[in-house]
Structures are given as structure tokens and as C-alpha cells.
């Protein structure tokens, strides 16, 4: 981990001092335990602020979307994949971006930690040798790190960025995991029960749009939610309106979502948003053998038309 951190700093320093980039977007220490915060470095001497650990959870590709300068960006596997999707979709100029790829350690899910602590506040956390030590008022607990890894990381097969300009550290071996196992229970339920489940989950939504704002693929200048001429649907937090938001968003990211998990992590109401899109990811895999963000050349199935596409849905 420390050697990755050091090589990120070195790579950043080199890029800045050779004037290959004007800015580095990475992570720095946050103000709370188990947190980092996005960090913008434009001076070579400031690269020492950059950190690399299991809490580097923001998907930084979001910060490349509106940039005019040349930017170096620290990217985990999923981040690099979302950058690739954005490059393909012409939202990020490949020539202006230097991807500093890093092998992902698997992110810590703060919500899992919170659930475990059940109302006791976490004041300090340290991660060492696959173990996590949680400290607070009157407690000090040690758990295996794997108990708190984000679900998106547990099912990830691309911890090494498939696309990068500089690679830091050493490549890690990719796990042979069951990518879609986590939605099996839900899939097995009858439609009515699934609907009830989604209703129950989404009823908690306060329409803060954090899930949209953190999603690297929600880059529309004006999201359909914000359009007023015409207004597509209601803006209240009435369940029927909230549902439309989530269903349409799921459609919009279908076939593009890289399962970075940023949406789920951001939701203050603990709604498992990945669940909604995971199924679309599975369909893409099964039907088209397609995984988003692995290539800059391959045209995504939903982006092209083939005369022999199966059209059994037209009855």
C-alpha cells in the first residue's frame, strides 16, 4: 500500500514537473475516520498530500468532465473503466487526461462499519494486515477487513485498471468471483414481491440526487429530472415520482455502469442503488458478453444497431 502511495506521488510529481499535466486529481486524508477527500494538486511539492488506501472511495472521473486543463487522475479499476466509458462517449478528451492507474485494495464500506458499531461513534480506525481496528468511547474492536469491504468490491473482477497511462505499484491478481450472485435472491422473487421490495427501498429516498451527482456516467448538462419544458414527472418525494427518477436513471446507465458503487456509498438513506443497475449489467453480460469500460474501441451494444439483433421482445 505504501509503495503504491509513494509511486502515485512520484508519478504525480513527474507529470507536474515535466509539465505534462497542469493538475493532479487524487485523494488526501479526510477529516473523519475511514475517510479521504478529493484533492487537487497543482504544485510538484504538494504531491506529498496524496494518499492511497482502502478509503479512497470517490470516483474521481467525475472531476474530469468539466476540465479544460490537462489533468492527471488517480484511478482504481472501476474509476479507470468509467473514464474509458466517458472517453468513448466523448465526454473526456483522451489527449488531456493522464490516468495514474493503481491496483485497488477493495474499499471499506463505512455503512457496514456503522451497522456493526450500532450507534457507537467511530473515533479512530487503523487497517493493518487485513485487519481493521475500530476505536471509540469505551471500545476497541478488531475485525477481519473483509467483513467491511464494499459489495461492489466483493464482486469486482477488474481491480487493476484495464486502461491507464502510468501504472503504480504492482498488478494484483483478479479474483474469480460470482459477479451477480448478490442479486440472485431478488431475481428469484416473483415480480410482485420485487416491486414491493423496490417500493419499500425507494420510499426512503429524499431526492437529494447524491447518487446522480457522484455517478461518473450521469453527466447530462440538464438531467431529465431538472428539465422544466416539458416537466417529465413530478418533483415531490411522492413514491411514484421517486420511482420514475430511479427507473429512468437505471435505464440511462444500463450498459454503461461500471459498478463502481459510488451511488450506493453516497446515499444518505442507505438505499442499495447498485441493486437496481446490477441486473442491467447482468443482462449486458449474458446477452452481449459485454462489460462496460474495458476498451476504448469496442462499440457498446446499446450504442450500435445490428440487423440480426435478437428482437424477441417484439411480439
Amino acid at each position, binding site marked *: 500500500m505504501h509503495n503504491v502511495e509513494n509511486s502515485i506521488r512520484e508519478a504525480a510529481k513527474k507529470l507536474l514537473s515535466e509539465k505534462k499535466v497542469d493538475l493532479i486529481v487524487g485523494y488526501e486524508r*479526510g477529516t473523519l475516520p475511514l475517510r479521504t*477527500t478529493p484533492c487537487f494538486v497543482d504544485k510538484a511539492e504538494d504531491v*506529498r498530500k496524496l494518499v492511497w488506501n482502502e478509503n479512497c472511495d470517490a470516483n474521481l472521473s467525475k472531476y474530469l468532465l468539466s476540465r479544460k486543463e490537462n489533468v492527471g487522475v488517480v484511478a482504481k479499476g472501476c474509476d479507470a473503466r468509467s473514464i474509458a466509458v466517458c472517453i468513448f462517449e466523448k465526454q473526456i478528451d483522451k489527449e488531456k487526461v493522464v490516468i495514474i492507474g493503481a491496483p485497488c485494495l477493495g474499499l471499506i464500506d463505512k455503512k457496514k462499519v456503522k451497522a456493526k458499531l450500532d450507534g457507537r461513534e467511530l473515533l479512530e480506525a487503523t487497517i493493518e494486515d487485513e485487519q481493521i481496528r475500530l476505536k471509540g468511547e469505551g471500545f476497541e474492536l478488531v475485525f477481519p477487513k473483509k467483513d467491511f469491504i464494499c459489495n461492489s468490491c466483493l464482486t469486482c473482477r477488474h481491480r487493476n485498471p484495464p486502461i491507464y497511462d502510468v501504472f503504480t505499484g504492482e498488478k494484483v491478481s483478479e479474483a474469480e468471483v460470482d459477479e451477480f450472485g448478490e442479486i440472485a435472491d431478488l431475481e428469484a422473487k416473483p415480480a410482485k414481491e420485487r416491486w414491493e421490495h423496490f417500493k419499500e427501498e425507494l420510499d426512503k429516498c429524499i431526492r*437529494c440526487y447524491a447518487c446522480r*451527482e457522484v455517478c461518473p456516467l450521469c453527466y447530462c448538462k440538464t438531467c431529465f429530472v*431538472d428539465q422544466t419544458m416539458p416537466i417529465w414527472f413530478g*418533483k415531490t418525494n411522492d413514491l411514484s415520482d421517486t420511482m420514475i427518477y430511479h427507473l429512468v436513471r437505471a435505464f440511462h446507465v444500463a450498459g454503461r455502469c461500471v459498478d463502481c458503487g459510488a451511488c450506493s456509498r*453516497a446515499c444518505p438513506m442507505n438505499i442499495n442503488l447498485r441493486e437496481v443497475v446490477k441486473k442491467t449489467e447482468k443482462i449486458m453480460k449474458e446477452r452481449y458478453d459485454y462489460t462496460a469500460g474495458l476498451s476504448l474501441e469496442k462499440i457498446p451494444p446499446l450504442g450500435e444497431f445490428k440487423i440480426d439483433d435478437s428482437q424477441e421482445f417484439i411480439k
Partner: protein
Amino acid sequence: MVVFQMVWKVIGKNKIPTLIQELNKEYEVFTPVKKENLVFFERVSSGNEAFLDFQNTKKSPKEVFFPQTEILFTYEINKQGVEIEKAPVLKRDIVLLGIRPCDAKGFLLLDKFFSSGEYKDLYYLEKRRNTTIIGLACNRPLSTCFCTSMGGAPFGKEGMDLLLQDINDKYLIETVTERGEKLIKKLPWLKDAENGDIDKVRSLSRNVEKAIKSKVSVEGVSKKLDGMFDNKQWDLIHEKCLGCGVCTYLCPTCCCFDILDEATTKWKRVRIWDSCQFSCFTLQGSGYNPRPSGKERMRQRIMHKFNYFPKNYGENFCVGCGRCVQECPVNFDIREVVEAISTDIWREKDE
């Protein structure tokens, strides 16, 4: 001013359900309720639902008076013209039980916003005026609580009618206002507190207050912001903010709203929460937006909280509850911004 006698009562923790049960006969009672891992203020129908062993609720209780979606009136357009049907009025008075001191102070700030000037907000005020607030002092503040920097305190009584103070297996009930006293009179079974207990909470209050570590130097910030509208720092301050509604929606004082008409079977005019962090905040019909980017919108948030509101109403528009600090998806920490403005030392954090 009516002078009332400040009384101290005591209630065993195991009697809280009974208390709620009794209040329920006459009032709409809202208390913290635990759902999965989160605690929210909700209307309770039985005494056992209340969950008082919390640090603070996920959402602030502002939604009791200022709900995220509120129907202002419904109407129908027919041959006779427009027929308006008023929104139903409050049927019963409200009791809020378990309000933290920061949130109670938040209500006082919201009162200023909704009731000053020529136009009073009747929707807010009707609920607010008919509410009794039973606060709950904080024995275990969070590491992100900075109420003491914002003129509050973990045992603060501002904005409360009654204040519960936790000593082991019972709560001491301090009467703060006449409204609180009235409520106490309806509960003759409450026992009087003993002097020893009162001394106990007094020292507890001092100790807890001393234990608050999160401090923000807010003095002079409002004045400094006067000259900062065009400051270059805003370019950097907002940089990581993604413009979601988390900080402002969870905040006990943020009260921006939008009004729109929606049709279901009838037309309804609704008020919904808005946030200065959204890209369409202040987007005008012409397409012009005076706050076109995240920079102007973050400046609005900071300015409103620490400059405009203090100028208009004499107090900062933040009570230091720390919700925005805890919940921001990218760890944007408002305390750092205030601190930087105050000290002129801008974010430069070395390992």
C-alpha cells in the same frame, strides 16, 4: 411577561412509553424512531416506538414544520372558474419529544426566516405555534458536534419548552417555558426531582460541554465575508463539491423551497425543498442563472449561513449539528471552510 415557576420533575426511563401513550391522547407525538440503522423523527402511535438512545437523527426535525413536500392548496378549473380547496389544517397540537439542543436552536432560526417581514409563512407558523418541544440534552455528543462554537450547548435550553436530562435510569425534566409548565400540569403523576439530582445534571452539563472537542472560530467570519464576494478562494473551496442535496436537505436550518403546480386527479400547488447546491437553483425562466457554477452556489451556501443571515437576523445560520460534515459524500467539511476564512490559512494539509 408572565412569570412562571420553574419546576423540576423526574421520570424513570421505563415510564417514557407511558408518557408518550398519555400525550398521544391529546397530541400528535413525534419522537426519534430507529429504522434499520438510521434514526428519524416520526409520528408515533405507541409508546414503545420511541428510541432515545441516539446521538442525533439522520434528518433534522425541521420536516415536522417544513415538510419536504407540502400541499398548499388544491384546485379545480371548471366552467365556473377556479375552485380552490384549502389544505387541511392541523387537527391536534404537536409534541416533539427528544429534540437535541442544536435542532431546537435551529427552530428559532427558522422562526426568524418564516415569520419576519411583511409576509408570514402561515403553513410553517400554524404547526410551529401549536407545538410543545420536549428536548433531550446530549450526554454523548458526536466528534463532529460543534454547537458550542455556534452559541449552543449540549445541555442548551434555547428553543425548548421542557428539557429531559439523562441521569442513568431516569430523566430529569426541567421546565423552560410556560408552555412546558402547562404540559407538566397535565401529568400530575410525575414526581418532583430531588436536589441531589439537580446538582448531578448541573455538573454533568459542565463536563459534557467541556468534552466537546470540535471547535470552529466563527467570530469575525461574517465581517470578513463582507469583502470576500469576489475572492479567488471560492474557485478552490467548491472544487470537490459535486452539488448534491445532502448537506442542505439534512441541515436543520436550510429552508430553501420551490413552489410548483402538479396535477393528479386535481391540481395541487405544492411546496418542495430546494437546495442552493443544485444546478437549477435560481435558474431563471429566461435561461439565465446568476449562479451558473458550483463556485457561485457554494459561495451562496457559505455566505447565507455566515454572512447574509447574520446581517438580516443577527445570528449565524448554522447550529453546529455536524450533519453536513458526517454525510457529505466527498467529505466537504464546512468547519474547515469557516476556520480558513477566520484564520486566513487556506487548506494546506501535510502528512
